[in-house]
Each structure stands twice: as C-alpha cells, then as structure tokens.
C-alpha cells in the first residue's frame, strides 16, 4: 500500500486546504468497505464530490458508486474518453487518464502491462470507464482486442444508450426505433449485444445490470476488479440513463432504472470457473476479516465496560 503519496508532509499539513487533509483523514484511502464504502456513502469524505453532471443524472450516481466500491482506491488508476462520464470521473481523487476518442482500452492495455513490469510485487487496479459510444462504437476495435488479448483490467460501460455529451445522437447501444439525432426516423437496427460480444471475446467475468441496488452493484464492481487482477478481462454493462436526451423527469429516474431492470437490462452475470474460484476465495476472505474485526471491536468494547 503506498499511502505515502497521499499523506501530507507533516509540516505542511496545516497549510493545505482542508479538503485535501480531510481526504486523508476521513477519506476511503487505506480503509475497508465497512469503514468507508457504498454502505455508508455520505458519511465519509468521498472520492467524488462536486461534479458538473446534469441534475438527476443516474450516471453521476453510478460513478459515485464505482468510486465508493473500489477495493483499493490508493492503488487505482482510471481511464476514460470523451463523454459525460469523464466530467465526473475527472473530479475523483484517483488518477484519471484521458486520452483520445475511444482509446481507453488500448491505453489501459499499455498501462496495466507497464504497471506489472514496473511493480511485479504490487497490485495496481486499472479500470476503464467509458460510455456506450466510447466503448462499443468509436472504441469498438480497441475494446474487443483488449479482451481478445486477455488484458487484465476492468472495463465498465456507462450505457445511457445515446451520445449524451455531444447532444443526443444515436449510438450502437440505442434501442431499435429510438428517435434520436442522426436517426430522424428512428434507429433501424438492434441494440448491440455487448455482453455476448464480451463473452465471445474472452472476458472472464461479465455483468449486465441496472444498478438499482447499491449493495448488488458494489459487489459486481468489486468482483470485476478482483477477477481482473488475477484471471483476465472483466466487463460491466451498467444502465446509466440519460434523463435529458430520453426526457425522463428527474423524479422518475429511479423508476425508469427499475423498469429497465425488467427490460433491456435484466441482470446477467457470467463467470468462468477460474473467475468463480477467485470470487469465492476473496469474498470468503473478506467475510472472515470483517467477522474478525467485529469480534475484535466487541472484545474491545467489553473490556472498556
């Protein structure tokens, strides 16, 4: 764990803006999910705070959730590309690489390999977080080939089924019939089968979901990261509606996400046997550690009493 680079030099601590000091004192660095995770969001200094996403944006919520779920934020680098998502991702207190259009998975291939050669004894989590256009349209070849090569990092597609940031154009992930910009008569072909493509290309852990349940969504994000560390490429396709381009009233955003859970974003979880073994092992370890911590704090409390 390299907390040194996020620890203020002792003598300068009182000259830093409080924001930065608090990030270390009350942030999730070096902490467990029980202490600072999705379960108690809003009660610790989060990695993403202010961001310029639209009011009621479901994508902003999911990005916030991604950062709260990171197993090791102090050893994580995220990569992204053009799109709404990067407006929030770039506000996180985790290094973020912004390259060119749709090249996040190619960059992550280079970055994750370079990390492994420079730090053979450390685990550095590399995660690409891009939209449906960046992942499946302009970045398609680079996304697919990173999976085909078996690159060990996590790909998260923020699927809002539209080019939101450029003003609402049709994307490969838009549903058939959707009337969007550049599709004035409605999209005339099907939504791309992203999870099927991922499985075919060799992803070892693949999930499609509408992240309406925080616990479940967090579990999936963590599983994808744990498996990518050891086994191979992992992929999450998450529904992160665009309430602007699809005209979803803010108060109905959650209901829409719920509805999608029964429609285009029915929960699907695929894992290879090898991935399953990793998940079972890590989750058992986490459970045991959490139990041990609880027992220890109980014992400590008993002692005080």
């Amino acid at each position, binding site marked *: 764990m390299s907390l040194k680079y*996020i620890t203020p030099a002792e003598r300068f601590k009182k000259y830093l803006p409080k924001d930065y000091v608090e990030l270390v004192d009350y942030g999730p660095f070096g902490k467990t999910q029980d202490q600072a995770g999705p379960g108690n969001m809003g009660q610790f200094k989060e990695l993403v705070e202010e961001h310029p996403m639209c009011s009621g944006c479901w994508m902003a919520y999911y990005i916030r959730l991604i950062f709260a779920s990171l197993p090791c934020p102090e050893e994580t680098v995220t990569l992204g590309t053009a799109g709404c998502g990067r407006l929030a991702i770039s506000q996180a207190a985790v*290094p*973020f690489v912004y390259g*060119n259009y749709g*090249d996040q998975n*190619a960059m992550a291939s280079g970055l994750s390999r370079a990390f492994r050669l*420079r730090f053979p004894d450390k685990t550095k989590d590399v995660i690409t977080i891009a939209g449906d256009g960046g992942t499946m349209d302009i970045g398609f*070849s*680079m996304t697919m080939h990173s999976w085909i090569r078996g690159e060990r990092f996590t790909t998260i597609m923020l699927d809002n089924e539209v080019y939101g940031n450029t003003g609402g154009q049709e994307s490969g992930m838009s549903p058939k019939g959707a009337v969007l910009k550049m599709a004035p008569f409605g999209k005339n072909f099907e939504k791309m089968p992203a999870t099927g493509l991922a499985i075919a290309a060799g992803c070892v852990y693949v999930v499609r979901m509408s992240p309406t349940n925080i616990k479940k969504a967090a579990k999936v994000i963590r599983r994808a990261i744990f498996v990518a560390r050891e086994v191979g490429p992992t992929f999450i396709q998450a529904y992160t509606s665009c309430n602007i381009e699809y005209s979803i009233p803010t108060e109905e955003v959650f209901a829409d996400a719920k509805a999608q859970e029964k429609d285009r974003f029915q929960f699907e979880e695929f894992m290879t046997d090898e991935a399953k073994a990793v998940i079972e092992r890590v989750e058992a370890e986490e459970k045991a550690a959490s139990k041990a911590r609880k027992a220890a704090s109980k014992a400590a409390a008993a002692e005080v009493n």
Partner: protein
Amino acid sequence: MSPNVKPKLNKKQVDINYLLKEAPREQHFITGAQAMSEAVKRASVDMAIAYPITPQSEVMHLVGNVYAEGHIKEYYRAEEELGTMSAIAGASRAGVRLFTATSGPGLLRGLEAIVSWPGHRVPAVLGVLTRVINAPLSIQPDNLEMAYIMHSGMVLLHAENQQDTFDFTLAAFAIAEKVDVYIPVAVATEGFFVTHAKGYVDMMSEDLTLTEFDPVAAPVPAMDNETPPARIQRDAPVQKSNFMSYLIHSVWQQEIWDSNRRAMKYIYEYLGGPIEVQNPEADVFVVASGCAAAQAREAHRYAQEEGLSVGLIKVRAIRPFPTQEIRDATANAKALIIPEHNIIGWLCKEVQAAIPNGGIVVEGPRVYGGMTLPVELIMKEIYDSLGVENNLKL
C-alpha cells in the same frame, strides 16, 4: 502476460555520453532495420508495441527477437496503429521507456494518438520508416508522411543511412527523456533504401545498455500511485468556453514547442548538431536530409572532382528546425539545391522560410512514389546554377 521465460541478462548500464561517444565500437555490415533494432537493444527499453506495415515490419520483427533474448521487458502486437499508439500513451503514464515504429499509411492511422503524445508529455521514441501515402496503393519509399509529424510538436530526426539510424535512435531516448524536453522523438529514415539495404555500422558491445528510465525525473508526475499528487489528471480537458480555458491551452501549446526548442542543445551534444556542412565557402549548396542527403553527398563528391564550388548541408534535425544554423551556413550562397523524396518539398519550404533571400532556392529536384534519386538529377541543377554547360539528358 508472457508465459515464456525470457533469459535474464547481465548488462552494464552506462550513461548516454559514454554509450554514444566513448564506448569502443566494432564495425558491422547490417540493414537499417537491423541498425534500429540494435539501438533498441542497447537502450534499456521497458516495452515495445508492434503492428505490421511494410517496410517497417522488419524493424519490429527484430525488436521482437530482441525482446525474446531478454533485452526488453514487455512486447506485444497490438490491434492496429491507433491501438498501438494509444497503448504507448497509456503505458507512458506508468513511467516506462517505450518504443514503436510505423510507416506511411500506418503513421496516418495512428496520427490521432501520435500528435497528442507531445501534449500528453509522452517521451517515447517512434521509428518512421517512410512509405508512400495511398492512393494508389504502393509500399515504396517517399517521405511525404514526415510533413504530418513536422507540425505535431515532436522532435523529428532524419537519418541518412544505417549508421545514422543506429546513433539517432539511441540518442532519441536520451533526448526525449530530458526533464526540459520530455516529448516524443521520431527517428525517420527511408523505407527499403535504408531499412532493407546494408551499410556499415559501428556499434558498441551489446553488453552495454543505456541507464534505466527514471520515472521521477520528469516534468509531469507519473500516474503510478507512487508520485503525488493523488488527484491527478495530468492533462485534464479544458474545454470550457472561457478565457482561462483558452489561456491554459495556449500556454500548454507554447510549452510543447518550447520543449521542442530545448531539444536543440541535446542534438548538439549527442549528434554533433542539427546540420553537417561540407565546403562552407561554396557558392552553391545542396541541402538535403535522410536518403536524399546520401545522394547529395555523392553529388558533392562529383562536384569536388570537377572543381566546382559546391557545398553540402545535411539536415539531421527537421524539428527543432535549424533555422539560424542554415541561415548562417548559407549567408553567402548564390544558390541552394534541395533534392527530396516527396512531391510537396517540405524541406524546400522550410529552408525558404528560414533564410532572408528565399529566391536563391532551387525547388528540387524531387522524386516520389518510390523512385530513386539519381545523382545526375542533382548534378543537372548544380550545372544550371553555376552556368556550367553540360550534356546531361534527363
């Protein structure tokens, strides 16, 4: 990532000055592609990423062998050039030494990523083994693609022959990684004419290797979770429509070109300067770079034999462009002949813009599409410039 066990080599790390200037050398008779890969072998490269395109492929095949022998830590074939060049940009954020190479159409395919390397402060070395730009399809040498790099902010060196290719490539790593430079360096040479032809190359022992990459000595923090600050976005988008966004982008661009400018002192230090001048008192100069400089050198020799007042200016560095050096070297010249392997005459335009009396520039001779550049084409211009009668039928 690599299941195959690579041999562990016990190489001696030395600094660039010793490696380039002092280490004993032996002569070899090798191709330009070999010369480039031999330089990579001695450069402690961490990672090389390959994608085939003729005539470059030979270089990255050989670099693959160099990797298999254990001189490079990581190597793979990427999906295509945009993927290759993007992966270089990604790997660079981790603080490692990087190499790749491409040719004509491949360079253009990767251009979106390549031209953003300087702004991203990617100190990688790019081999450019020149090839025509389609259409129609051809694989032959023509260095038109170099014009696209000239305006990217990268340092651009142009090698005349196999020896230059070796020396320039080694020096390129040192220049790219200087804290006051830290932008990519492209080493260009002509496809086939140099890459697939043999020439004599003096090389130091392969047991010597350049000092390893230092991820801390950099003008930007490595994004490796080891270097502060934590909240980095090394090159954040600054697309807001306000004066501050325009200002940061403008000073950022200035910084790239300033870095390019600062590379000049290292071109002096490691390569003896951006130009080579023969017969400085001459009336007529042949000014050329790359393969055309080899032919210009031959024309210069012919002219010497014939007792004509002809000099040679070989341009090693296209970026930073040696404006002052060329202005000084040609101050008393009556004519400048600029042979080139491309139709647009990018070197000719640069020289015309560099000197106060552009009218003395003879715009050519130029060959393209893969045609060779006969010395007689240059001689014809020399005779015409000097008013020497001749019976050259061209």
